[in-house]
């Protein structure tokens, strides 16, 4: 239960941090900036698409509903 809350806090923190990076443009990069930089290279783009495909496959085709 505690770790589930830690996961939730991490996800909320990640989302909030990214929103702040997009709005305030601080000196640190948002994850979208990092992904755009990686995706500009063909290999990086294919790597990100592979990660994206794995996430979709794992989350939407192989999920287990909680009892």
């Amino acid at each position, binding site marked *: 239960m505690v770790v589930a809350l830690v996961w939730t806090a991490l996800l909320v923190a990640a989302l909030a941090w990214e929103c702040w990076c997009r709005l305030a443009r601080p000196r640190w990069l948002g994850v979208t*900036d990092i992904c*755009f930089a990686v*995706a500009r290279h063909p290999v990086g783009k294919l790597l990100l698409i592979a990660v994206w495909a794995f996430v979709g496959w794992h989350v*939407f085709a192989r999920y287990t509903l909680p009892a």
Partner: protein
Amino acid sequence: MRNGGTALRFLLVTAGVVTYGYWATGRPPFGASAYVAVGIPIALVAAAALVGRGRSTPQPTPVLVTVRSAWPWLLIGGLMVGLEIVGLALGGRSAAVPTLSTVVDHALAWHLGRLLLFAGWLLVGWTLVGVHRPERQ
């Protein structure tokens, strides 16, 4: 007129995504139809990326990714990876240390939750296709 066409296209695309997403996220997991429903967008995105198609995504000014500029995300990512490794080491379904997918499964219990996440996933995939290498000067 141009705005009207753009709005109509947006509506049609949104309706298509919602319809397809509703069908795709209604498939029972681990079934052939679920694999097909997820596999179709993956195949389309992979094909579009390989042939260099896709609408150009508005891209921010190129940035230099350094440890100093990316440390907050390295910290968040490191914590997530560490927690995931511990969860997997404990069997992946531990009640004490669940993995991220076990936590996300709770959001997937509702069809609407699955549909929203699926639509977001499609949007990320399509955005990735639209990122192109900058022109050399």
